[in-house]
């Protein structure tokens, strides 16, 4: 891998961003022989070497993984999601401000590897239930692809990254190429059998995750430490840093330039093509230009959109590829802040050993075929986990002080299950990302303005999630059942997507079925911004599959002389 700081340089391809999709674009393009420049706005993070907290104990941290009031005040979004052990992989709100027209928690990971270091690792395929949803219920424009267009690419990605999971033969949540599944613990098995007995259209299965249950591609296996967000010294889960970037580097075709904030993509009116990008060095504020034949924009949904919006020219006065006026609109994020929890009095002589880095999944069951029809569109899945209460919970539940209190505190408490509904969010034109006309950041770029709310369909779903979750727990004999709705703002699930959507019609969409800008055929966008609807599955696997597919198409078009 080469790091550069030349002022001007030409490449076959430029990839903007090095996160989960940028890493994939880099690997695919490099392996196909293209000299590829990856531009990353944050610092470099090398696999293992740059995971300083990975092997630390709780007592090695000054605040024992609590945040100071100062951190919470200065970085309210980073402060609720991270602590001393993984803060280095979360972007500071204070240093990188944006405008929340309505509350929106924009979680970022500005570094080589992006948020692939801290992602939830859940890997679920979309199906035609999802790809056909918009056209069937009329909520929005149709996807330009169907499951058959992407299923082979799901295979391809899963085989490379390594996904553990269990085959369930559900048509609407297709099986993948799985490593052996992780195992449910006894309370989860109990809940699973209760659901199987009581609910015709539902099932509970172990989460499908990019944690390796056996060695894979010279990585892993997962050591069941559940410290993933610190970076894994065993390479136990997939990240750009552990996997795609080393693969890209191994070809000898990769160049990475950290601290490179892309200001805009340069458009040539005569050629009707993008010819390169203009970059600001994050530290020196110097400007550079890099040229290439094709450009992949993988800066993460909101940043990708802002780069396109800021790439203005006579041809594109409102942002590159924005003939449809859809660029920046239809922002979606799954809601995941409502659900149910409960305690179970049984299984007192059972426990577990090891810290499994995932929970369980109850796949979507609402509005499927002739199954469970309800008064809202689409559906949700439950993600949760069962465990025995530990000292963190016991300290608030057990009264008293002294030896008896200590004894209760340090023994396993009752079994508990927490589960939240991860729900589909419809694309609404007025949920949007735009650039401020007046306010700028310290690099002179316009501040990003985010306006987002969940609406009636999502709120109806949240209610249903609470009731349904509580019912399933009740049927399984749980006590002290609580339903909750944290009312977290958009962004909290960190599944923001949809602001440069794919579609067949250039009048209503930004990208075509190959993730290619309708109007600029050598620019591809394959991160979350391309999504036409959100489904309810965790989306990263789909982004990766779309990226590999688009790279394949782009290179074949280059070879055919079309780009």
């Amino acid at each position: 891998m080469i790091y550069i700081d030349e002022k001007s340089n030409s490449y076959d391809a430029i990839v903007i961003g090095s996160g989960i999709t940028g890493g994939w674009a880099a690997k695919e393009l490099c392996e196909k022989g293209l000299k590829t420049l990856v531009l990353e706005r944050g610092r470099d993070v090398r696999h293992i070497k740059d995971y300083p907290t990975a092997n630390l104990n709780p007592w090695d941290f000054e605040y024992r993984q609590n945040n100071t009031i100062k951190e919470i005040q200065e970085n309210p979004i980073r402060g609720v999601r991270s602590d001393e052990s993984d803060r280095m992989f979360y972007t500071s709100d204070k240093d990188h401000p944006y405008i929340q027209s309505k509350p929106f928690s924009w979680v970022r990971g500005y570094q080589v590897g992006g948020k692939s270091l801290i992602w939830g690792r859940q890997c679920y395929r979309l199906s035609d239930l999802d790809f056909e949803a918009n056209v069937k219920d009329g909520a929005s424009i149709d996807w330009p692809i169907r499951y058959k267009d992407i299923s082979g690419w799901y295979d391809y990605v899963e085989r490379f990254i390594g996904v553990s999971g269990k085959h369930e033969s559900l048509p609407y949540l297709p099986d993948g190429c799985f490593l052996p599944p992780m195992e449910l613990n006894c309370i989860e098995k109990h809940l699973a059998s209760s659901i199987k007995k009581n609910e015709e259209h539902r099932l509970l299965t172990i989460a499908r995750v990019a944690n390796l249950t056996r060695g894979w591609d010279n990585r892993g296996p997962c050591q069941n430490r559940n410290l993933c967000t610190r970076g894994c010294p065993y390479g136990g889960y997939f990240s750009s840093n552990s996997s795609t970037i080393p693969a890209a580097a191994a070809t000898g075709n990769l160049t990475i330039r950290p601290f490179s904030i892309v200001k805009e993509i340069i458009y040539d009116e005569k050629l009707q093509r993008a010819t390169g990008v203009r970059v600001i060095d994050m530290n020196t504020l110097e400007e550079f230009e890099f040229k290439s034949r094709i450009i992949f924009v993988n800066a993460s949904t909101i940043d990708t959109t802002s780069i396109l919006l800021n790439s203005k020219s006579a041809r594109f006065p409102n942002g590159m590829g924005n003939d449809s006026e859809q660029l920046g609109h239809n922002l979606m994020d799954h809601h995941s802040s409502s659900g149910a929890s409960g305690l179970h009095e049984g299984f007192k002589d059972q426990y577990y050993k090891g810290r499994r880095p995932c929970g369980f999944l109850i796949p979507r069951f609402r509005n499927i075929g002739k199954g469970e029809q309800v008064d809202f569109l689409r559906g949700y899945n439950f993600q949760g986990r069962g465990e025995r209460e530990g000292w963190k919970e016991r300290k608030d539940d057990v009264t008293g002080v002294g030896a008896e209190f200590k004894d209760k505190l340090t023994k396993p408490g009752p079994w508990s299950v927490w589960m939240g509904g991860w729900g589909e969010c419809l694309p609404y034109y007025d949920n949007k990302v735009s650039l401020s006309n007046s306010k700028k950041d310290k690099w002179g770029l316009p501040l990003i303005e985010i306006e987002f709310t969940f609406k009636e369909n999502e709120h109806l779903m949240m209610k249903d999630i609470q009731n349904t979750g509580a019912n399933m727990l009740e049927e399984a004999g749980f006590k002290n059942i609580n339903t909750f709705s944290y009312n977290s703002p958009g962004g909290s699930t960190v599944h923001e997507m949809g602001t440069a959507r794919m579609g067949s019609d250039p009048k209503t969409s930004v990208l075509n079925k190959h993730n290619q800008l309708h109007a600029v055929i050598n620019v591809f966008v394959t991160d979350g911004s391309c999504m036409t609807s959100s489904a309810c599955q965790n989306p990263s696997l789909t982004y990766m599959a779309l990226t590999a597919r688009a790279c394949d198409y782009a290179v074949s078009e280059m070879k055919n002389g079309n780009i």
Partner: protein
Amino acid sequence: MNRRQVLYRIVAFSAVAISGISFWKYWTIYKTPDLSYLDLKKNLIAEIAETIIPATETPGAKMAKVEDFIIKMVKECTTIKSQNNFIKGLIDLEGYAKQNFDVDFISCSVKERESILTHFERLEDSNFWIRKLKQKILGDNFFYMLKSYTVTGYCTSELGATKGLSYDYLPSTFEACTIIDDKQKSWATK
């Protein structure tokens, strides 16, 4: 100060005004606390923590130096309102010990110390929602903080995690269902 905070303060102020308490109470919540008081009372804090989690067949709070953690948490990870509650709580606790047992808390027997702490635990509202509301308006309850910081400090210390609890540094495998007896300690981390 955002709109929500202003609102809370108005509500808080009205609440104390209506309940007939003077402006004094309002001021005691928002004044800048004298945090050096905590260092002066380090020994007291250590003894309180040890009363909550005493040395038994496994180490107690004092051996795990939980008082250092508690002071750090109150100084840097606690809001001003709650800091004031904590300091006032310590003063009240000392006063209560003197009044009822004629000696300092430190000189009380284990039984007496436990009864003192139980008294302060009972001052907490048992109703979850009232407790939440009070916490929002008046800051965290003294005893809640004391117990919470003690437990956290103990369970995340090396002695507490490895001796008081079970610490599995490198599990390697996951065993989904194991059979345990009543001596089984819970896992220190999840």
